[in-house]
Each structure stands twice: as C-alpha cells, then as structure tokens.
C-alpha cells in the first residue's frame, strides 16, 4: 500500500463497548501532515470542552507522521489527551519502539475512547485488536514485571511496543507516566492517570508491515544523506556521547543547575552525579529507539548487596538522563549516585513522572524543614540528600495512606495551596518544571509554552546563547517573538514526527527534501506557516478550555534565586506575558 494512504488510517478503539474500527482520514493528514498537527484536530473532534480528564469523555490519541520510520531520527510517538494535572489540552512525546510499531501496523493515529468496566489491556497486532483481561496485572508493584509478563504472553518481539502504567496510574496520581520499552516514557502531564481512569493497564502494538514509497531512488539518496548527518554531525554528538546528562556540569558551571528546590543554581556535588562521572563509573549499556542510530539512552548498572545474605547481589539496570538527575539528585541535594539510582528505581517501578515527582519531593522537604508539615503527615523525617526517606515518600504518594498524601498525589500546586509554601512550590500552570534555571526566556517559555515544557521552544538554550555571545537581553516582546517562532517550527517537526533532539539536522531545507520522494512538495514558507497554524490551533483549544497566560502564577522562588542573567525581573516577564496575550487575541480574531 502507498505510504500516505496507509498513514491516513486512524484506528479507533472504544473501551466501553470493547470494539474497534479503522477510518481513512486523508483530508486530515494531507492538511496537517501527522503527529501533533493531526492529533490536535482529532482532539478537537473528540473531547468536549468541559470533559473530565479522568472521565469517559477524555480520549487518548497516539499519532505518528509521514517521516516516521522513513528516515533516521524519526522515532517518536505523540500522545494527546486532556491533562488530569492541569485540566487542559496536553501533549507528551516518547521514544522507544511505539512509533515504528504503530506506523508499520498500518496506522497514522490511534484514538482510544471510553472507559472499560474492568481492568484490561489491549493488543494491536497489525489489522487486529484484542481486548484482554488485565485483572492479574492490575496492582502489580513494578512496571518492569508487567513488561516482563507482557513480553511472554504476547507475540511479535522486535516489532513491538509495550506501553504500560504502574500503580501510580491505577491510583490516579495526576503525574503518573506511561512506560514503554522499560526506559522511555510518556512522562509529562499525567497520561498514566488517564489510562488508569480507563482501567487500561497496557497497550501492546505489533507492526510488521512495509509500505511503498513513490520515488525509490530519490528516497534512498535522501536517506543516505540524513544517515550520514545523523552519525557524523556534531549536532548529535552530545546525545551520542554522554547523553543529555552532559548538561549537569555545563549548567552547574554557569550557575543554572536547579539545586535544593531551586534555592541555588550551583550544586556542590554536581561532579558526583555528572554525565562524565556516571559514564566513568556505572554506565553499562547504550540503547536506541527503533529507527535512530544515536543511542542516547544511557543505562546504568546498580549493584546492591543483600544485607542479610552475604554474596547475594541484586543488579538493576536504570536509564539516566539530565531530567532524572536534576529531579532526583541535584534538586533534592542527593550527591550519591547509588542513592539517586535507588530512588529512580522506585519512581520507575511505580510509573511516576520523574520531573513532577522530584519537584513534589523538593517542596515537601522544604515544607517539612519550615514546619508546614510534620512527621504526622509525612510518616517519615525528611532532609536534603536523604534518599531512603524519599523512597518512603514516593511509595506513599502512590499508596496515599492519609489526606496529605492524597493531596500530594494531585501535584505541587494543589498541595501547597492546602499546606502552604506556594512561594517555593515550583509549578507553571500546575506543571512542575524541567531542570534549568538559565534566565528569563526560559521562565517565560514555561508559562507560554503549550505543554509548559522545556522542549516547547528550548528557551533554556536561547538564554545560554545570549549569555555566551554576551548580547543584552532582547525586549520582552522580542523574547516572546523568538519563543513563539521556535515553538511554531517545532510543530512541524512534531507533526512529521522527528525527535526534537534532531532539530539541528532537520532544518527547513532538509525537511523539504525529505518530503519529495513521497510526492509531497512543501516550501519552507509553507512549512513554517503550517507550524504557526498548528501552534495557534493548540493555543486556542487551551484558551477555550479556560487557560489564560495572564492568570499563571509565577513561583516567587524563580524570581529570587539568581540565574546566569542575574535575578530575573518580574516586570520583564509580565510585559512578555501581556504581549503574548495580545498575540493570542489577534490570532483568535484572525481565525473568526
């Protein structure tokens, strides 16, 4: 079957009636390419404005794009849903094998509707969908065990993705993640809780098909060009060598590494948990997503003796990146690699978003030190660096033995509203931030970015570029223009769908070239316009759901702790937000 024709197939799964069907949505894919472009439109069709994120009206949309599986580095799946963490249109991306599995099963998108009456898991194997009883898997303590069992009881190893939730998702922790291929995650914004609310323990996708490309010789030539760039270009070197963990020392050296709940930009033990040190001491294996030669996934070996059994050891393999290191090491004052990995192990077992969990733990530590909460609520003592206690708290976030933990499971914003300490409750529109304290553009981007994510526009890197070039800060208006322009272009990449780590390779002229063998001709100008249109669509959906950039709380802490650009001026940020609001209002008027 032809490439675009097969991409246009949308698989609909109704969990309430336990049925499925396929619809060809060529009109959507020809206008919006795929990925986030198409998923946004599907969300508009599916989710009523007032839908409860944990109710039957919410849907889970997975989407891939025209370049998925076609070229190296096009290896990500886009998930779209309404977030139970902040109540708005949400988007989360993951690597692993799901993108190629969905594509080679013959789909461009999957829409999962409704709620099952009992725990189930769904197996999508090429054209067939099977609903399987999930009662035995439900409540299992480790997502790793769930993965191990599903590997045994489903077919298609090597052509397969196993996306599953942990107990955190089952118990509706609002920042529960979805784990896929053990080491990759739909981490942010609570997709795990949405799956949990649907009683959907796991989704297994097996795709073994192949599709024809119209212009084969050109395709092969373009493939070779991208492949050479992928393996030789300096743009991929950072991810290839030390992985994103290379950021730890780089950020620390410019005083932008969030430490002890963003109270400092410098961690005195950064050298102990740096990418360099980890590579030297405990890096055990490198793994890649299907279709990507980079192998940015860095896996550490944790060897633990059993205290009561001499000469018995438990060896666990855990993947580390910059974000887990920030969230569970520097921002908690943990300088022990072993301590960090033990804590990470529990977060992975339970299926929690590592960033949100780390921020929640950091707030709890400070609230405990300040006396806002005590052992009575926490059920343990807590202090910076005390990973044993953090492990207990993480288990309790999932088990929710008292009112305090029930609130902690709602995110840092909710718990601070109830128990105090909002000034150091790090969240933007209720979303806990990633690990950068680089300057004002990053802070603005966390507020205006459609996912409130560091990768929306990569503004942490704009801050650093400004610093390196010793250029003065742009005006607030220019700052917003730059952020929006970058975020708009990224809509093109995430519609195609390219891994954002490869943004340095997939420049507009390369994207144009990549589409040619598919018989699709889009100029740089047209691509950029499409990116802007998708960006507007997403923002307007959020605004229709009640979001307003002017209402977003800015945690005092980020305005107090100096960045490499000094203490961030709140007026600068507020000016930027006003200008952003103006852009949104204009966009809305233009649309109507």
């Amino acid at each position, binding site marked *: 079957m032809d490439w675009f024709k097969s991409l246009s197939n949308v698989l609909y799964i109704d969990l309430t009636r336990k049925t499925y069907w396929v619809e060809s949505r060529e009109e959507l894919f020809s206008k919006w390419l795929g990925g986030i472009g198409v998923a946004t439109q599907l969300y508009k069709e599916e989710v009523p404005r007032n839908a409860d994120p944990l109710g039957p009206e919410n849907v889970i949309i997975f989407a891939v794009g025209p370049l998925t599986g076609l070229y190296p580095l096009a290896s990500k799946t886009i998930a779209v849903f309404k977030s139970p963490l902040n109540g708005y249109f949400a988007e989360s991306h993951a690597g692993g094998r799901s993108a190629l599995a969905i594509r080679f099963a013959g789909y461009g998108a999957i829409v999962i509707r409704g709620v099952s009456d009992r725990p189930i898991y769904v197996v999508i194997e090429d054209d067939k969908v099977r609903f399987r009883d999930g009662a035995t898997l439900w409540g299992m303590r480790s997502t790793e065990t769930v993965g191990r069992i599903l590997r045994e009881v489903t077919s298609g*190893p090597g052509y397969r993705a196993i996306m599953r939730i942990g107990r955190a998702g089952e118990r509706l922790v609002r920042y529960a993640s979805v784990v896929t291929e053990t080491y990759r995650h739909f981490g942010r914004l609570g997709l795990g809780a949405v799956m949990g609310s649907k009683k959907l323990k796991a989704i297994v996708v097996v*795709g073994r*098909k*192949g599709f*024809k490309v119209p212009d084969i010789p050109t395709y092969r030539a373009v493939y070779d060009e991208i492949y050479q760039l*992928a*393996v030789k270009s300096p743009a991929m070197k950072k991810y290839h060598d030390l992985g994103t963990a290379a950021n730890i020392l780089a950020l620390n050296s410019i005083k932008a590494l969030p430490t002890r709940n963003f109270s400092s930009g410098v961690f005195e033990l950064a050298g102990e948990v740096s990418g360099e040190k980890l590579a030297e001491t405990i890096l055990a294996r490198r793994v890649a997503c299907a279709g990507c030669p980079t*192998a940015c996934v860095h896996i550490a070996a944790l060897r633990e003796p059993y205290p009561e059994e001499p000469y018995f050891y438990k060896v666990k393999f855990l993947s580390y990146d910059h974000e887990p290191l920030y969230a569970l090491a520097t921002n908690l004052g943990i300088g022990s690699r072993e301590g960090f990995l033990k804590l990470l192990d529990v977060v992975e077992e339970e299926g929690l978003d590592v960033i949100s969990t780390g921020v929640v733990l950091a707030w709890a530590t400070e609230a405990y030190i300040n006396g806002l909460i005590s052992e009575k609520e926490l059920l343990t003592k807590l202090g910076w660096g005390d990973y044993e206690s953090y492990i207990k708290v993480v288990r309790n976030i999932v088990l929710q033995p008292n009112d305090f933990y029930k609130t902690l499971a709602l995110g840092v914003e909710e718990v601070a509203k109830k128990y105090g300490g909002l000034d150091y409750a790090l969240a933007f529109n209720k979303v806990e931030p990633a690990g950068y304290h680089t300057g004002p553009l990053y802070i603005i981007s966390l507020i205006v970015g459609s996912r409130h994510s560091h990768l929306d526009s990569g503004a942490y890197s704009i801050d650093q570029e400004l610093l390196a070039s010793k250029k003065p800060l742009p005006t607030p208006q220019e700052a917003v223009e730059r952020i929006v322009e970058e975020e708009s272009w990224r809509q093109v990449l995430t519609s195609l769908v390219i891994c954002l780590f490869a943004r340095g390779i997939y420049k507009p002229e390369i994207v144009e070239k990549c589409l040619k063998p598919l018989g699709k001709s889009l100029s740089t100008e047209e691509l950029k316009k499409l990116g802007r249109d998708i960006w507007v669509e997403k923002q307007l959906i959020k605004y229709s759901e009640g979001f307003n950039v002017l209402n977003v709380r800015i945690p005092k802490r980020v305005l107090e702790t100096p960045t490499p650009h000094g203490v961030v001026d709140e007026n600068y940020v507020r000016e930027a937000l006003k200008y952003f609001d103006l852009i949104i209002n204009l966009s809305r008027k233009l649309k109507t």
Partner: protein
Amino acid sequence: MRRLVVVDVNKCVGCQLCMLACSRRFGIVGYSKSAIWVRSAGGFERGFTIVVCRACKDPPCARVCPTNALRVRDGGGVILDMSKCIGCGLCRDACDIGAVMWDYEVGKPVICVHCGFCVNYCPHNVLALEEVS
C-alpha cells in the same frame, strides 16, 4: 564468496536500522521484507539478540524444501527461487535459529542473501561481511 556475520552483539543498541535497510533494498519502508531481526534479549535491560542466516554449508532449510525452491549458495546459505516456492513454511520450521523470516504479505519466506547492504547502516560496526571459501 562472502557472508554476513554478527561481530559483537554486545555493541548492538537495538536501533534496527539493519532491518529497515533490508526492506529498503526493495523500495519498501518497514519490516515486511527484512531478512534480519533484532529483538531484545528479554527486555532492553538485557541487550539484544540479532537473528540472521549464518550461511550453513549444509543448510537444513534447503534439505526440507519439497519443491527445490531453495538452492544452496556457493559459500553457504541459500538462494530462494520464488517461482518454485509454494509457501509451505517447512524451511522456517527447519531453521534452529529462526533465521527464515516470513513475508506475511505474500506468504513466502525471506532469507538473507548475504549482500551486506545492512552493514552500511550499522552505526556501531556490529555487523560485517566476511570472506568464506
């Protein structure tokens, strides 16, 4: 003659670019025509298993073929004659390492011809072509 060899499976990162390259020989994007198969060795934490024809000198797959569709290749391995193949699947069952893949779209086996196209796309030199007498 040459044959494809797995030099060091421990260096495999599971990117599957070899599998994609194999189908790309036929202008197909996907896995349906791939004669090489990379899967995890029981979860990504355990690394990977690479399954591909190892060019047996006396290949069991050829011995069980009822229509002589599989001809023993100089240097080991087999060449498939599509016009003779009836898609019975005996070859697949006969291969102890599971290196006879299956093309579900046409219902016939896919077996490595040791062309080495995939070697060009292995970013970590896990695969190589080796001279055989």
